[in-house]
């Protein structure tokens, strides 16, 4: 299905001078060194692929190049001249465009209105000229060999066509560098072919394309060179012609493990507590089955977009599933809302704690008891502040949440402490099963270790834990078993002893191509 590399056709157009150069880019966030002296360059008419695990620094590097972040150190050159960006408008006006994985289109407007948004064609009276816009859009599409009606409303277009509109929008300006973040992740194989032919056209016109993708086969096929990042550091920049998939994987993995808590004993003969059977649901979770034993920590690995959070939403009943059953202690349970899930003893600590985990304007006390209102009532059915404060104080002490008092408003807590409040909220509810979605994302190294210790303690106390994490070392360090999700399907179930970064990564990337091929077959047949 997927064709091999076609190396001959583009080598000539690549010139020798770089259109963009980034030198020694360092980007620090509180507690995190996101980029550490990274060098990066692209030539006109070149396709450069940026590769790395989740959190390796790909997006951060591209955000520096597009003016979203201003780097702490390092400098950039555009066409040999110093490039200083204060904001995204600067980058845009210099000819640097980016297309995100999530499209930034207004679905209610037409294709041409989207393309010329903020840059509308006007009549001599200053009104918007639809005639001119239509003309220009049609011309642009002709140039790009895209067959879309400029007057169609964007919401009526498929994903692939929407992406074409994004590309056209980026190129409606004088673009020198086009950055595409995971452009193929939601495309079927036939659509990927179309995209690639457009990329080749852009190349022929001398536009530099930076391509971020996890699909290694694709990466080797489309790119001239590949830059691999790991832990915010540049691993190597290689020519696509000289490399194979296994070599790329070994360059991507092998991250620093020293921050991670480890060492726990787990008795694998414990009884099964929770089972998921044949779970399918939106947007693309397909036939997922697994089980959790008492006191077991099961890591759920996968690339961004593999559907890990979506899987949790289906388990929690927050999203309606197509099919599948959940069982607690061998008995099927009906979970059609998070309310049901909590009643059945399933808790969920969301990745997006600010928006999904906490009620920001409420106090630490009120947040800690949000899931256990029935436990803090007195015999008349009113909230007992004495009971509530006791519970709040217990968890503040146990989790060492740093607050001025239990009345501390959670909005003003640090990330690590907010996360502890969310975990504390579920501890107080004492669920049998707890899903932790990226529990250590965005918190500093010290708090990370504490959260890891906490997770291990919970499991030791008999709680079954599904740990979603993008950090493989974290998963490897504290999981008793590792599941790998790829494009909505489980592709590996590895015991602690057999799991390592290589085979997890292989399971995470491999299936993507087969399922994309399946999708293509689905559309053609």
């Amino acid at each position, binding site marked *: 299905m997927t064709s091999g590399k076609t190396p001959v056709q583009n080598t000539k157009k690549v010139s020798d001078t770089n259109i963009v150069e980034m030198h020694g880019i360092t980007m620090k966030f509180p507690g995190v060194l996101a980029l550490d002296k990274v060098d990066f360059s692209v030539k006109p008419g070149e396709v450069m692929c940026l590769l790395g695990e989740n959190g390796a620094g790909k997006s951060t590097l591209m955000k520096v190049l597009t003016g979203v972040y201003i780097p702490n150190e390092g400098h950039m050159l555009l066409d040999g001249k110093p490039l200083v960006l204060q904001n995204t408008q600067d980058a845009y006006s210099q000819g640097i465009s980016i297309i995100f994985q999530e499209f930034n289109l207004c679905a209610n407007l037409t294709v041409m209105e989207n393309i010329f948004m903020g840059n509308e064609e006007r009549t001599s009276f200053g009104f918007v000229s639809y005639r001119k816009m239509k003309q220009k859009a049609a011309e642009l599409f002709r140039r790009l060999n895209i067959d879309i009606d400029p007057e169609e409303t964007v919401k009526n277009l498929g994903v692939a066509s929407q992406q074409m509109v994004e590309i056209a929008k980026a190129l409606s300006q004088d673009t020198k560098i086009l950055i595409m973040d995971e452009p193929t992740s939601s495309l079927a194989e036939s659509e990927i072919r179309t995209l690639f032919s457009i990329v080749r056209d852009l190349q022929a016109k001398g536009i530099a394309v930076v391509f971020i993708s996890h699909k290694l086969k694709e990466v080797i096929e489309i790119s001239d060179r590949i830059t691999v990042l790991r832990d915010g550091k540049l691993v190597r920049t290689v020519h696509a012609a000289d490399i194979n998939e296994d070599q790329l994987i070994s360059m991507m993995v092998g991250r620093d493990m020293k921050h991670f808590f480890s060492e726990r004993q787990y008795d694998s003969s414990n009884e099964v507590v929770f089972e998921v059977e044949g779970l399918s649901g939106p947007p693309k979770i397909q036939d997922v089955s697994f089980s959790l034993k008492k006191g077991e920590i099961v890591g759920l690995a996968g690339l961004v977009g593999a559907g890990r959070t979506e899987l949790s939403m289906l388990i929690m009943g*927050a999203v309606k599933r197509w099919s599948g059953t959940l069982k607690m202690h061998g008995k099927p349970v009906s979970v059609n809302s*998070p309310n049901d899930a909590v009643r059945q003893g399933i808790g969920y600590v969301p990745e997006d704690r600010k928006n999904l985990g906490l009620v920001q*304007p409420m106090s630490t006390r009120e947040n800690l008891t949000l899931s256990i209102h029935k436990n803090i009532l007195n015999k008349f059915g009113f909230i007992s502040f004495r009971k509530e404060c006791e519970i709040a104080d217990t968890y503040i002490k146990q989790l060492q949440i740093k607050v001025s008092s239990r009345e501390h408003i959670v909005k003003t807590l640090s990330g690590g402490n907010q996360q502890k409040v969310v975990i504390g909220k579920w501890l107080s509810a004492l669920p049998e099963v707890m899903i932790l979605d990226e529990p250590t994302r965005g918190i500093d190294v010290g708090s990370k270790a504490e959260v890891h210790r906490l997770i291990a303690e919970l499991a030791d106390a008999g709680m079954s834990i599904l740990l979603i994490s993008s950090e493989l070392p974290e998963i490897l360090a504290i999981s008793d078993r590792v599941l790998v999700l790829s494009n909505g399907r489980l592709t590996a179930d590895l015991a602690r002893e057999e799991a390592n970064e290589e085979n997890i990564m292989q399971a995470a990337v491999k299936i993507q191509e087969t399922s994309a091929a399946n999708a293509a077959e689905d559309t053609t047949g």
Partner: protein
Amino acid sequence: MRVQEEQKNNRTIPSIAGRMGRRLMKQKESTIFLALLGIVILVSIIAPNFLTTRNAFSVSRQISFYAIVACGVLFVILTAGIDLSVGSVVGLTGVTSGFAMAHGVHPLLAVGVGLGTGLLCGLISGALIAYLKVTPFIITLGMLSVARGAVWVITEGWPITEIPQSFLVVGRSQIFGIALPVVVLLFIAVIDFIILKYTTFGRRIYAIGGNEEAAVLSGINVARVKLGAYLFSGFHAAIVGVLLVARFSSAQSAAGEGWELDAIAAAVIGGASLAGGSGSILGVLIGASIMGVIRNGLVLMRVSVYWQTLVIGAIIILAAVIDRERDK
């Protein structure tokens, strides 16, 4: 360590009164309470007849009607919703109870009819909003029209005056020189305060307004709580509807017209956020009082009714802007 010390401090504060006092000073309400005091002083200087017993009696009675409705609306506003139908519900509940009385139903039962009508309106709006997830603004705007329409259908524009004497006594009665509606308001306010502060229902109302998604994922049955909020709103409006029948010795078809805006304004002036999650009964009482006192003061100063409307509007805008600035 710091946490433990803090705990100790909390325990050493002895009385509930002390804790309440400290909380009072910390709360948003303290500033608007001072504003109310200032306005009262100002009005009594400019209009000497403001501080007469008679005027105080009628002002407090007038305020109490608005304030009861506003207390109900507060439940909805706290969930980040809005109830535009309360004015019409006031009118409709008055008319249904009046209609029942006029047709020989025992006044107590007729009051039940009125209250039931209010709950029904809340149930319809609340169910559509909570379970079908239609925007509160549209649903309650529709209910505003439906309820007022029902009033016209029942009364054909005429007031219902055949109200039994035994019921009219209610409208004129007073307790220790305080008008009955004021007593009812205070009673309701205390109950609402307890519900919002000491029941899970109240806590969940704040949680939903603060972050609905987090509330859902915490296992809170959000739809049920929202429905409850609209039921409360309808019920409060119904209480006022019935009280107004007693007050005016008749069920007026125009009763409560435009009150939804006064109720919302009272809540907002009292510090409630239309984005949900913040606001209090105490704030509503103060907010309603500020509006009532200013309105009364303008009457006593013989300011034309047109100017009164303009001034009230300006105060609402001012309150919203001050609130926004304070949040920054």
